[in-house]
């Protein structure tokens, strides 16, 4: 049984390590320190941790002000509130002046579970991706999350790192090196490329293994950096396979599926399917039940592969 760890657990751990490395690093939270795990940083560096209370907009604009005095500012809260409620603070006061603020909210996607629709967001990647100069990272597991959070400190400017609540299988280990902007090929294949991000990377690996038994060789990519997108690697792969399926725990509108469809439609048009939340709000349930309910399982990916293979084999 593979190890399971939530990507949010990486946040507190990474912040403590960063706190020792960067004396000018401060952390702002909006009353969710236990849930986001920023409390670990608070315990280690109480003088550099500030709880803004339930005031996400103020947290984000204050982060910009702190960055104006030379601080690297990491922020907390849940993805829906950080990127949704405080969107314009991130757009106008953090990103327009290119401030060194890191937006690493937890509880993104459907795997939030029982809290339901108000606390689940499938729009956050879309919101962050459209902001000029924003780096958008969606790690696949705990280890990648930790490396990405730490790497964000080296990027001069705003960075969004998407973290989840639920414990999910790990893919990498502590020796993994995260390179921003690089697509990671996890499995070589020739018939179709599966581009996945976040928890869907592990799901795509499962799908690829099932597809293999059915005689379909799927190439699998982890696209953890959604912006800037590794265009070269993506184009090279689909030039070879001729088909693309994109999977994400996010709306099929505006996320990784859109980013890849935008790229391939102009550079290398191929049959493409997007697996994700189909323009819906969420609901309560256990994470695994919700993944089934919203069609985010390896079976859904295999079906998407079959559909585009049938389509591409149709006579012209």
């Amino acid at each position, binding site marked *: 049984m593979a190890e399971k760890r939530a990507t949010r657990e990486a946040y507190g751990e990474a912040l403590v390590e960063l706190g020792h490395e960067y004396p000018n690093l*401060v952390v702002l939270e909006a009353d969710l320190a236990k849930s986001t795990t920023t409390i670990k940083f608070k315990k280690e560096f109480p*003088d*550099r941790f*500030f709880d*803004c*209370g339930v*005031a996400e*907009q*103020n947290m984000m*604009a*204050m*982060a*910009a*002000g*702190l*960055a*104006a*005095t*030379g*601080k690297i*500012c990491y922020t907390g809260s849940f993805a829906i509130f950080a990127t949704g409620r405080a969107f*314009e*603070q991130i757009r*106008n*006061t953090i990103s*327009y*002046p*290119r401030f060194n603020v890191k937006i690493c909210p937890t509880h993104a996607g459907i795997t939030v579970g029982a809290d339901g629709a108000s606390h689940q967001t499938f729009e956050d990647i879309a919101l962050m991706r459209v902001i000029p100069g924003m780096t958008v990272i969606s790690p696949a597991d705990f280890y990648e999350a930790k490396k990405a959070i730490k790497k964000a400190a080296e990027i001069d400017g705003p960075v969004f790192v998407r973290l989840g609540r639920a414990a999910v299988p790990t893919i990498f280990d502590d020796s993994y090196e995260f390179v921003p902007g690089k697509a990671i090929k996890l499995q070589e294949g020739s018939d179709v490329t599966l581009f996945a991000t976040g928890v869907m990377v592990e799901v795509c690996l499962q799908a690829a293994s099932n597809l293999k038994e059915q005689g379909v060789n799927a190439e699998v990519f982890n696209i953890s950096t959604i912006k800037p997108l590794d265009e070269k690697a993506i184009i090279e792969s689909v030039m070879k396979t001729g088909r693309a399926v994109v999977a994400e725990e996010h709306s099929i509108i505006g996320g990784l599926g859109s980013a890849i469809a935008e790229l391939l439609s102009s550079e290398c048009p191929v049959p493409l399917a997007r697996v994700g939340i189909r323009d819906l709000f969420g609901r309560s349930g256990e994470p695994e039940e919700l993944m089934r309910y919203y069609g985010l399982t390896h079976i859904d990916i295999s079906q998407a592969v079959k559909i585009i293979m049938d389509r591409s084999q149709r006579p012209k």
Partner: protein
Amino acid sequence: MRDLGSLRREKGAILRTQTIADEQILIEFLESKARRIRWDIIKMIGLARSGHPGGSLSAADIVATLYFHELRHKAEEPDWPERDRFVLSKGHAAPVLYAALAESGYIDREDLWTLRKIDSHLQGHPDMRKTPGVELSTGSLGMGFSASVGMALGLKIDRKESRVYVLLGDGESQEGIVWEASMFASQHGLDNLVGILDYNNMQIDGLVSEIVDIQPAAAKWTAFGWHVIEIDGHKFDEIMGAFKEARSVKSKPSMIIAKTVKGKGVSFMEGIVDFHGKAPSAEEMEKALAEIEASGPLG
């Protein structure tokens, strides 16, 4: 006035002139600076044919007092680490800031006439990455105030003596983030933070008191844990006195509630809501410039 100007130059960066015994000379000096700022505001917006004259003119005396008396800053070193920060949270009053920056020597006066033009570094709302001396990019209301709280906190963490001055609009005070930030500032005892409320009681759609009233403003800010000072925002002795009082307040941020007149200094703009965001015509511009010139020497 000439004496004070040379004194200011001799003192270099330290523009605070409270050691000068003759307050009347100082006030005349600040009046001339404010007149120069008003003249520049009118010409800038008149030539740009768009912009916000009303709220720029109402803040001119406050901004003149900040740049030519209160703030410790160096135009030749805009990033001087020990400087005081001024944030124009009501970013639509950009012309008052640009005029003060030009008069202080951060930017060329000739640049002012390029306001809002495609090649200009002077954007419709302040952009800190384009214009030297602009501390923060503002324009979306309420955020500059919140970011100023972050700045004041950052300076406290670094144990700097620098102070943060943030100019807030009265309509802007309707933004919820202002009150989120105000609670954080008092919670953390940010006594290096001074807010100035440019209370001209007018916003785009009409009178603040008739749209969503911010009264009782003093009681609100007091209740939110701030030291409140109420002044006439066009009387230099009161403006200087308020800044001095704020400097003496410990473990609390200060809010200076400055009663002002929208369009102050140009008779046909005073108290006219339409001049919130409407440029004067060429004819109106000439008339306004002549009126300002006739009111006394330009700094």
